[in-house]
């Protein structure tokens, strides 16, 4: 199974990973090999098998909704690359100018 450069570029955008031309080239080859390798699962007939998403097929876990101490605003912002002491600051969400 072989992936095209266009497909890999699209996956890169979905994954929010900027890829250079050289990375795109390399990743296309590597992903094609890996996808081919994992495709061997298709030789198994699993039509009657339920998916197992989690080893503990447990019940929901409930707790009382009681307010408790959590991080302070200061603690929550302490590792932020940019903030104004109350909010995380990011570049413009809309539009195509003013990258921070």
């Amino acid at each position, binding site marked *: 199974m072989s992936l095209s450069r266009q497909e*890999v*570029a699209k996956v890169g955008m979905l994954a929010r990973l900027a890829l250079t031309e050289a990375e795109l080239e390399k990743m296309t080859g590597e992903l094609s090999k890996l996808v081919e390798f994992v495709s061997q699962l298709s030789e198994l007939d699993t039509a009657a098998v339920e998916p197992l998403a989690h080893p503990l097929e447990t019940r929901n876990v409930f707790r009382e909704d009681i307010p408790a101490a959590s991080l302070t605003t200061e603690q929550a912002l302490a590792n932020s*690359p940019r903030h104004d002491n109350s909010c995380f600051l990011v570049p413009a969400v809309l539009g195509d100018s003013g990258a921070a």
Partner: protein
Amino acid sequence: MQPLQLSALDLVGAVKRGDLSAVACVEAYLDRIVAVDGRINAFLAVGREPALAQAAKIDVRRKAGKPLGALAGLPVAVKDALCTTDLPTTCASKMLAGYQPPYDADVVARLRRADAVIVGKTNMDEFAMGGSNENSAFGPVHNPWDLNRAPGGSSGGSAACVAADMAPVAIGSDTGGSIRQPAGLCGITGFKPTYGRISRRGLVAFASSLDQIGPMAHSAADCALLMETIAGHDPGDATSLTDPVPAYGQLLGEPLAGLRIGRVAEHFGAGLDPEVARGIESAFDTFRAAGATIHDVELPHARYGIPTYYLIAPCEASSNLARYDGAHYGHRHRAEPGREADQVGQFESPLVEMYCRSRAEGFGPEVKRRVMLGTYALSAGYYEAFYAKALRVRRLIQRDYFEAFAKVDLIAGPVSPTPAFKLGEKTGDPLAMYLVDMYTVGTNLAGIGGISFPCGFTPGGLPIGFQLQGPALAEPLLLRAAHGFQSLTDWHTRRPALSA
């Protein structure tokens, strides 16, 4: 008294009796780190001052006759995937360089409450993705048995620091073999308990349905000692098990006679190094001589373990690692006009451009590869063929274990197909690197427990690791079987010839 030669059990006993001060104990290991870690690179951070300050407080409390915790004065090295408030937590990634967590992982908090002393944070493959520790953004770890070889991974720093006596015990995490494989390649004992036995709160998430924290030490007895402190339910991790935590240490002494051990033909097929195979066979002989019986069992879907794992783990990782967005914490791209990399395609907004460039700069090649593979396998049109397919095969793999454990108590075999390989030997071929996990991923996919420990050495002097796997919550049996083996052999007492 020479702390470096004592077991964790003996160290704690000596500190409690007052034969050894906590300060002397911790200082001996800190000095050993200074003496040898320049050659090993097992530590990403060492907290000398806080460790000595905490040890001094323990000594004051002991002299005042106050009660001490179960691990009083015991130096512990912690994998850098676990959050610590007094030391940075980087997951060996540039993405988290300098990150200072606002809370302690549950395991770290439990260790501190038991008066253990965290001496430092250990090197690892970036975000725990790898089997050689070569994916660390801060340089590889060198195997103490041969500095030109890899220690295994991803908990390579934790394994190497115990092997080189820079800490008597360490904490690792195991998503597909990341405790057991480096333990095997470094000649120590590594324990991956049942999924959920230890809280994952504060463990940087890789693949949440597979991740499991566990102890690494020279012996199963020392692993049992740590388990008594770190296992147990935590309301902060809803998947942590509520079952009572047994007194693991008290259950170690029972004999091996009557133990039914399964031997899986699939574990002895193509790819297994003949020297490793010889070591494994001699370990079976030791168990036989002690009265255990060996039975052939089948895990018919074991050969699908690696492709199943390399779908499920990257899918979960691509979702978990979406949190590294450059906005809340971690690396953020700084725009420098004219210096932007030659990027393919257009960004829909400045915010998306910041995300994409921050992640491109912060993540290393293996993390990018897995995020890409997971994103692809979860994307529209491929989800059913890849991710859902892997979940169905996961159930077949788990069912194989259930059926095998109806016939035997434990399953035994090699941890890894080869002894420690040379640094750089597999870095050019991702698939070759993935195959080093061929005997270990099944444990995680099934959610059960496994332990690895040394069962011999190659003629070239490299440790050979033996693995036992057990049913869910069979921790007492796994520890007891490993301890029984270690009572009859001395492989776990061997040390690499590292001059200080």
